[in-house]
Structure formats: C-alpha cells, structure tokens
C-alpha cells in the first residue's frame, strides 16, 4: 500500500517533468527535465523492486543512476560544443580568438 502511494507520487512527478521537457523554451530546460525524469526513474525502479517483492531489481536502479548521470553530461557536452571530438580547452581558445 505504501509502495503504491510512493510509486503514484513518483509517476505524477515524472509526468510533470516530461511536460516540461516537451514545453521547455530553451534546450537547457529540456535537459534539466530529462535529468529529473531519469532520477525519478531510478526511484521508481527502487520502489517497484519492493512493490513486486523481487529486490534483485535494485541492481538495475544502481546501473540506471550511473547511466543517467553520464548521459546528461554527454548531452551537455554535445550541446555546448556541437561535437564529441574536441576537448573543452580548444573551444574556449576559439571563443577567445573570436573575441
């Protein structure tokens, strides 16, 4: 019963985050919403593990927490630099040269 309540609350939050990802005026709003969605997914998997009584599923929550973080950082790098192959310093030098 208590797990159902928690799962429902997390699902509502995920819905609100998804709505912000669809509406979001800037790309950063969308990334923020997807980051929040991912964190709530980790919590939902953890609650679902208790809801179904199969606590092995917690391993998936653990992996998802790591993948979510790396994914968000990778998307941020892509948005900021436009590619995956340059390092941050080169881009800053280009910006300074343009100034």
């Amino acid at each position, binding site marked *: 019963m208590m797990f159902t309540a*928690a799962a429902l609350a*997390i699902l509502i*939050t995920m819905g609100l985050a998804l709505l912000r990802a669809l509406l979001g005026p800037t790309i950063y709003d969308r990334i*923020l919403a997807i980051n929040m969605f991912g964190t709530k997914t980790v919590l939902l998997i953890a609650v679902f593990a208790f809801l179904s009584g199969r606590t092995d599923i917690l391993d998936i929550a653990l992996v998802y*927490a790591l993948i979510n*973080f790396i994914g968000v950082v990778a998307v941020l790098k892509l948005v900021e630099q436009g590619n995956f192959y340059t390092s941050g310093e080169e881009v800053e030098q280009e910006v300074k040269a343009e100034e």
Partner: protein
Amino acid sequence: MIIELLSWIALVSGGLLGIIGGIGIHRFPDFFTRLHAAGITDTLCAALILVGLGLQSGISLVSFKLALVFIFLWFTSPTASHALANAALHGGLRPQLDENKDASPS
C-alpha cells in the same frame, strides 16, 4: 509498528516533495530558478524515499544496495545541476534579474 509508521512518513513526504518539485519546474519564470527547484527536490525526495525503503528491508544486502544508490545520487545530482548551470551560462543564457525585468520578458 513504529518502523511501519516511519516508513509511511518518509515515503509519503518524499513523494510530496517530488510533486512539489514537479510543480516548481512549471511555475518558476526562468531556467535558473527551475534548476533550483529541480536540484533541491532531487536531493531530499530521493533521500526520503530511499530511507523509507531501507526501513522496510532492515539491515541486509538490499539496504546496502539502497545505500549505494543513495550515495551515487547524492554525488551525481549536484554535479549534474552544476554542469547544467555552467553549460547554460556558457551557452549565453543569463539569469532573469528584477531590474531588467521589463527589458527581457521571460
């Protein structure tokens, strides 16, 4: 019985904080205030829900895994928030200030 009650309180207040954060990212006017709403609830909502689950499992491998999830979220969610704010500033987004509110509508 007491553990059951504490678990209820932790899970329900964690869920409520999550919903408040979800409302926050819709009601706040610009990106940086939304980041504040999402960042704060990411931390406490996750902590309370994981503590509520941990109370149900007792001390075992399950609660150890929950603690690991908690530690990862504890470190990665502020880092992700910081990276987001940094990228937004670098990408030319500026916080909406009170003094130039009329000049730049949200």
